[in-house]
């Protein structure tokens, strides 16, 4: 009985946080992109546009739900449902932290651990292409069809280097479950270099990590590989005919896939929740960062860029101070510090996604395929061979 109650609580927490992350990821993306391009981004709805996601949700919910007469009704309605439901499932097996004592119950910071966890994620990503392919086909529109076709070809091609890049950390961890993979990366070389797979000693997995990230960009249809929705050739690609919540489903699926792939990269290559510094120092890093943020906010207050900053910056500084105090309590540290490190790594990778979108132009379609098959695939194969050799010899 205890198991069910704890599981229900964990599911509720993960679901709430995940949904909020998806909504605010879009705000972060718009803000970061805007600052990369010397704009300000959302600013009107709430302080610094912080209520923009809420406004967007209301806009999408109240928009007219169009059903074009020429579509294949069943598949047209099935496609967004398929896309979003498959994208939201994989978060359930991601471990966010180690085993903790939760009011007398020992439990992992994870909804459930699957012994073949990584295969489960790969299976979901293999199946998730149907949402996009069906959307493209059932819309009965040549742009949508081209988008769907491109997407399925692209995802099949990039699944190969992605899977090959995943195999090397599996060889090192000798296990398929995410929990075991993350716990195998605990500890430090020489007392200060973390034993993450990316720093793995005889053969660091840095190439594997880069290949995984590049293939991940293609799997999530993000720039520079967003050919399925290239707006200057295909209007909006596979979701041209979709409006209101059905469009929002595709949008949500894209962001959910992004979060999943960054979490998987964190667990496979960046050591999951294991901190960068040994425990006596790393426990104080979150506090120090929050304190630094508070100081920056207070310093900015002396010369505010806008009038409203005089009211918002003290609030932000106060929030940062409260966070610093919370992270400094030793009782809460056991729960919060692993979460902080996990979120910091995954957040950094998410920021890289947005950064790349703001920096790189889109590939041409033949370049995309050429890159996958003649460069990325052989590289992934070589990386796997080298890792296997090192594992066998050392």
């Amino acid at each position, binding site marked *: 009985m205890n198991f069910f109650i704890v599981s229900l609580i964990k599911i509720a927490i993960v679901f709430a946080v995940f949904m909020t992350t998806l909504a605010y990821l879009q705000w972060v993306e718009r803000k970061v992109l805007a600052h990369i391009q010397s704009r300000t981004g959302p600013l009107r709805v709430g302080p610094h546009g912080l209520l923009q996601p809420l406004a967007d949700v209301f806009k999408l919910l109240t928009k007219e739900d169009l059903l074009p007469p020429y579509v294949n009704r069943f598949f047209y309605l099935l496609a967004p449902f398929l896309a979003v439901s498959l994208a939201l499932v994989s978060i359930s097996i991601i471990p966010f932290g180690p085993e903790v004592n939760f009011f007398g119950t020992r439990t992992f910071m994870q909804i459930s651990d699957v012994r073949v966890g990584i295969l489960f994620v790969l299976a979901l990503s293999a199946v998730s292409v*149907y949402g996009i392919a069906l959307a493209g086909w059932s819309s009965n529109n040549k742009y949508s069809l081209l988008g769907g076709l491109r997407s399925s070809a692209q995802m099949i091609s990039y699944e190969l280097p992605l899977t090959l890049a995943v195999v090397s950390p599996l060889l090192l961890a000798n296990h398929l479950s995410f929990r075991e993979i993350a716990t195998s990366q605990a500890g430090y070389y020489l007392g200060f270099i973390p034993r993450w797979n990316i720093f793995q000693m005889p053969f660091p997995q840095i190439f594997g990590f880069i290949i995984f990230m590049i293939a991940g960009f293609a799997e999530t249809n993000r720039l520079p590989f967003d050919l399925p929705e290239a707006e200057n050739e295909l209007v909006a690609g596979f979701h041209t005919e979709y409006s209101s919540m059905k469009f929002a489903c595709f949008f949500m699926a894209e962001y959910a896939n992004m979060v999943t792939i960054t979490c998987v990269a964190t667990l496979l290559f960046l050591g999951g929740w294991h901190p960068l510094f040994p425990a006596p120092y790393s426990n104080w890093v979150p506090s120090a960062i929050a304190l630094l943020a508070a100081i920056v906010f207070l310093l900015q207050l002396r010369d505010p860029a806008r009038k409203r900053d005089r009211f918002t910056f003290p609030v932000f500084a106060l929030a940062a101070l409260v966070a610093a105090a919370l992270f400094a309590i030793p009782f809460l540290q056991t729960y919060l510090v692993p979460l902080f490190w996990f979120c910091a790594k995954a957040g950094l990778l998410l920021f890289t996604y947005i950064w790349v979108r703001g920096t790189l132009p889109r590939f041409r379609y033949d370049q995309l395929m050429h890159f996958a098959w003649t460069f990325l695939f052989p590289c992934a194969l070589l990386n796997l061979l080298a890792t296997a050799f090192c594992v066998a010899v050392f």
Partner: protein
Amino acid sequence: MDTFLFIVCAIVAVGCAVNLVLQKHPISSALSLIGVMGSLAVLYLLLGAEFIAMAQMIVYGGAVMVLFIFVIMLLNAGTEKTSAKSWFAQIAGFPLLSAFVALLAFLIKVVLPPLHPVEFGSWVGGTAEAIGMLLFTKYLLPFEVTSVLILIAIVGAVVLAQKEID
């Protein structure tokens, strides 16, 4: 719980298989096939073969069926016309099918040694470790021969798809 899941997945698998034959549109048929693959994967999982279940989803549910759908979409195949049914199939189809199923049931009952019902969760040989161990020791030769066969198929596909070079 296990029995309930088994019954649901078995019904879904058979229903999708029947739907696959009955549907007139290729895409509907292909999606029904994915439904069959998915429910089969759950059945494997129920029997304890977790690795096979995931491989089924990745290889058949993912890669193979994506290619099917890709080709159907690329050719933009429309609704198929039902062919004129032959008089033989109309008259003798159902009796012959029943006879075949009855024969099969009879053979299973009489010829095969007495079978025990499956107990869910009792078999533990389906983990990735166990399968890897078997593949690389007991079944090494069939495994390697299969990989060579696939390699030959790949080379054949490349040769067939190659454009004529003067």
